[in-house]
């Protein structure tokens, strides 16, 4: 399922949990290649030999020696994990992180990008007012042609033993791609697939709270769409459940994931029918990534998930 995996790292402890998942995936799926990739800095100007470190803001001389030194550091950091897989390649480059990650993913034609939610260790209180999930993650998730697996907490189960996969949908076009990934993953590992939708009845929406009849109508409509859009595509796969709740979507999906002890949440990267070029990471996904105890896969393109 994952022949080529790209693990995008800041080469700092914030990516340790993501590193474990990436190496574990590579090991279990006997992937052809695991690329461990780090964009170390941005040139101070044009073709300047100096680079500004993306995390510290310090200026370094980005010559081959420095790049070699960074690679050595990466090798030392992941030494134990590197020993567990056969085909690991360390890559590093100078450039804007999200652009370089996307470039690398395209160049190597990877099937999955694994990354942490943050560029640096954040205090939970502080995340509230910052660009919540790291900007790099946000931009990669928005533009990637393959699924992006975002890890923000230690993962207690390895991918192959996942038993509960939740697919959160808003019935958008991007959600169709997310469904394909969730379905394939559930089928592959023998997990139960929960097709989940939350009817947004938050009173925050212009202060209007719909009546009970209207909510019930919405739930009925959502169930019909689930059957039509997703169940019809699953053939004889019967290890699934449809759940439709009402409330604030990100609150409900997190509540549901906790209740089911979910191992993976799969969502489209943006939650409205808008031009993908203009889409920001949907606030629902952002909130879910931040708080989810399990990994979150953001899928917004059918390229790497459409094949059977």
């Amino acid at each position, binding site marked *: 399922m994952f022949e080529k995996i790209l693990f995008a790292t800041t080469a700092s402890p914030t990516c340790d949990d993501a590193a474990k998942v990436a190496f574990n995936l590579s090991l279990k799926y006997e992937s052809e290649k695991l690329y461990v990739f780090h964009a170390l800095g941005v040139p101070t100007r044009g073709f300047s030999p100096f680079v500004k470190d*993306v*995390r*510290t*803001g310090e200026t370094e001389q980005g010559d081959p020696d420095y790049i070699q030194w960074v690679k050595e550091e990466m090798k030392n950091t992941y030494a134990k994990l590197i020993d567990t897989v056969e085909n690991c390649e360390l890559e590093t480059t100078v450039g804007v992180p999200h652009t370089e990650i996307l470039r690398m993913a395209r160049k190597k034609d990877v099937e999955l990008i694994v990354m942490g939610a943050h*560029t640096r260790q954040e*205090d*939970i*209180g*502080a995340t*509230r*007012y*910052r660009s919540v999930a790291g900007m790099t993650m946000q931009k990669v998730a928005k533009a990637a042609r393959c699924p992006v697996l975002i890890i923000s*907490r*230690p993962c*207690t*189960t390895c991918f*192959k*033993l*996942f*038993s*509960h996969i939740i697919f959160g949908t808003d019935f958008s076009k991007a959600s169709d791609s997310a469904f394909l990934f969730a379905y394939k993953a559930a089928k592959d*590992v*023998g*997990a*139960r697939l929960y097709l989940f939708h939350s009817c947004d009845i*938050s009173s925050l929406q212009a202060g209007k709270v719909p009546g009970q009849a209207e909510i019930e109508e919405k739930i009925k409509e959502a169930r019909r769409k689930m059957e039509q859009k997703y169940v019809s595509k699953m053939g004889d796969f019967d*290890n699934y459940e449809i759940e439709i709740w009402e409330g*604030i979507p990100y*609150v409900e999906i*997190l*509540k549901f994931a*906790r209740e089911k*002890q979910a*191992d993976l949440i799969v969502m489209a990267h943006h939650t409205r029918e808008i031009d993908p070029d203009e889409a920001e990471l949907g606030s629902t996904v952002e909130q879910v990534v*931040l*708080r989810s*105890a*399990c990994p979150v896969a953001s899928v917004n393109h059918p390229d790497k998930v459409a094949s059977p």
Partner: protein
Amino acid sequence: MNNITLMRDGSIVQNGETVESVLLMFLGFKVDLEKGYTLRSWFQMLGKYSLLASLNAFLPTSIEQYLACPANGCCFDGFDHLEFNKTVEMIGFPGNPRLEIYNSFHGIKSHKTFALKSVRMENILDMSVRLGKLKHVVFGDKVDIFEFDTVFSLFEFIDGIAWELSFHGSPKQCEIGR
């Protein structure tokens, strides 16, 4: 003046008298905690003054978790106590220079702070809660942090803890796929 005391049983006292129904004007009042105040007291307060539970979208979920916990003995020796802090942080990079002010709620063990998100609710509910200091972080220097005495409003105290608890929850165990 403009002080309220949060009691161990969850009630709110102003000028020696228990507040019967919480008024929004108390949200800006400075809070003091009765000795022995615990996280359970905080939830009991939300139970007594239900209006406060609508301050955060995740509070109903946290309250559900709280109600499912044992009635006592919810402690563990990983922390000495829980502490509510305020941080003022000057940030120079990345992005434009800016100053951010936020609250945080941590576990404290031997003067070191630990995140609560991976600790289960039934392990911290009966741990004492203390009001900490204001920390001033200058340009990411987390070693030389200035600390000052400060005050916390009732709103900060509820909202800050609710925000932190909304990150709570880690799977108890993993199940083997069929």
